[in-house]
């Protein structure tokens, strides 16, 4: 493998999150190293998606802190997370349905746009130049994900598997350093899953992007991830490389039910 797993880039310390009386996450700590593929697994309702939402600031944890490249965030918000190079995909596709594929990916370039509203209104100098520049970048993503044939199709009309791919494309258009994937393979058939695995590994390998993913397909998780965190009822019950986690008795009982 060409990639080299580096230092800890993202460190979560004692994160607790509750909604009223419901404790979604209790005292969770784990870290993510640069260039690695880190999986979060656990049964339904274990708090996996909440974990991602905490990382990119959609939810604010009551306790704990997030350390991103040595910088401490007690209050993350989505905008700061995006600026810091974190992008994500969503479990139940959150694409912009009224826009076509190119425009959806172009929104991913939003933080890099410098021209102002008046320049854009007159399609003038910098605005025009930027449109072309970012279009070229977006076309690179389109080529990478092999979605050239649908570039002008409104995303609402695309089949599910392709929508998932466009969702990944929008996250990639941001050129993130950390990519959060929330069940990228949920509801896909075998071929689509294979394609998606290939894209995830390629992103990790070619761009060196750090990937944090949630997935239910254990074969996939154990196959592609470097380290795995296991959550159950909002608590961390396992952490380590796939083999370690597979052998962990707590994990086995959480998934298969313990024999008391």
């Amino acid at each position: 493998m060409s990639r080299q797993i580096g230092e800890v880039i993202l460190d979560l310390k004692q994160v607790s999150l509750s909604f009223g009386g419901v404790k979604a996450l209790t005292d969770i700590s784990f870290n993510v190293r640069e260039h690695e593929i880190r999986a979060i697994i656990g049964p339904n309702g274990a708090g996996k998606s909440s974990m991602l939402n905490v990382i990119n600031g959609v939810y604010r944890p009551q306790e704990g802190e997030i350390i991103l490249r040595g910088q401490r965030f007690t209050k993350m918000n989505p905008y700061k997370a995006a600026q810091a190079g974190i992008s994500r995909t969503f479990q139940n596709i959150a694409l912009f349905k009224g826009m076509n594929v190119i425009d959806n990916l172009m929104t991913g370039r939003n933080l890099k746009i410098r021209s102002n509203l008046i320049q854009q209104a007159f399609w003038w100098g910098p605005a025009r130049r930027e449109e072309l520049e970012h279009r070229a970048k977006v076309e690179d993503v389109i080529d990478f994900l092999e979605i050239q044939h649908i570039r002008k199709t409104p995303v609402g009309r695309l089949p599910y598997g392709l929508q998932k791919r466009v969702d990944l494309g929008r996250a990639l258009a941001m050129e993130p350093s950390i990519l959060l994937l929330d069940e990228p393979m949920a509801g896909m058939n075998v071929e689509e899953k294979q394609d998606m695995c290939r894209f995830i590994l390629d992103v990790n390998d070619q761009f060196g992007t750090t990937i944090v993913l949630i997935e239910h397909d254990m074969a996939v998780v154990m196959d592609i991830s470097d380290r795995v965190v296991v959550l159950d009822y909002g608590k961390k019950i396992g952490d380590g490389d796939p083999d370690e986690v597979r052998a962990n008795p707590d994990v086995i009982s959480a998934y298969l039910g313990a024999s008391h």
Partner: protein
Amino acid sequence: MLYRENGQFKTSYAADQQIFPITQDRWAIIGILVFAFVAVPLLVDEYMFRAILIPFVILSLAALGVNLLVGFCGQITLGAGAFMAVGAYAAYNFHIRIEGMPLLASLLLGGLTSAAVGIVFGIPSLRVRGLYLAVATLAAQFFTDWVFLRVPWFTDYASSGSVSVSNLQVMGWQINNPLNKYLFCLAILTVFALMAKNMTRSAIGRQWMAIRDMDVAAEVIGIRPLFAKLSAFAVSSFFVGTAGALWGFVHLASWEPAAFSVDRSFQLLFMVIIGGLGSIMGSFFGAAFIVILPIALNQLLPAIGDLVGVEISTAGISHAELIIFGGLIIFFLIKEPHGIARLWSTGKEKLRLWPFPH
């Protein structure tokens, strides 16, 4: 057969990102502009200008503004009439209080004032949405109604709240007859429509549409809802305010606050819903439908009555007009909830493939 894009290959992204990537569309739009600027003035009489064309052009501009906010950014508003009023009265005050103020500057300053007021009344959109936001923007309507009736400074202490302007000119060009008024409004509409199109195809437009379609995802990729929503309110109010200033200055010449009542807000909202939300073209279709259809019915019904030998009373005509108008609105909304613009684009797509169905 004529409407085909076969053989029109794009070799650069610049060519692919044009407003009208299909050659036939470019010719069509040039044709429409030539028709509107050259042929219409030769063909049409004064009544047509005054009763149909000038209102149509100005209300298209206002509908365009409303569409940017409601159709592109998804923030529903019932305050369009208020922003027209702000534009009109602000332009009036700039015009009479500053000596030698050029007409165009007054109109644009009116629009800018309206944009500032729009931002203020857009602030609730950060917390509430949908119907609740509609009610919040309705506050703008009642507020401006009250201000322009009760605060005499805004109407230059005119006794009835009615104000008037005269002797309009732009760099020596007298805007005194219906033809010149029409051309003046049309020129402004053309520039504004181009601006609207440019905004909707660049970063700011994508921000608006992202907020409309899925606001959580938009935030996650680094779009700030505050900026996107308030900029949509500002630009929309700028368009609507400029339209309001034109409505007062050019169309009415003397007006009172009742000219911009809540009816106007509803009318503009209906225009964009019927015309097509999120479509520049739709704004024109909607304005045409609402402005031209009642007048056309009014003219047409007696003629039809004569044809079948029935005398229809004037009252009967105005009743029938409302019935048919309402019926047509319902028909269009059932047939195509996305508005006339969608019918138009579906038609174009079919034409591209004709005679094959797929």
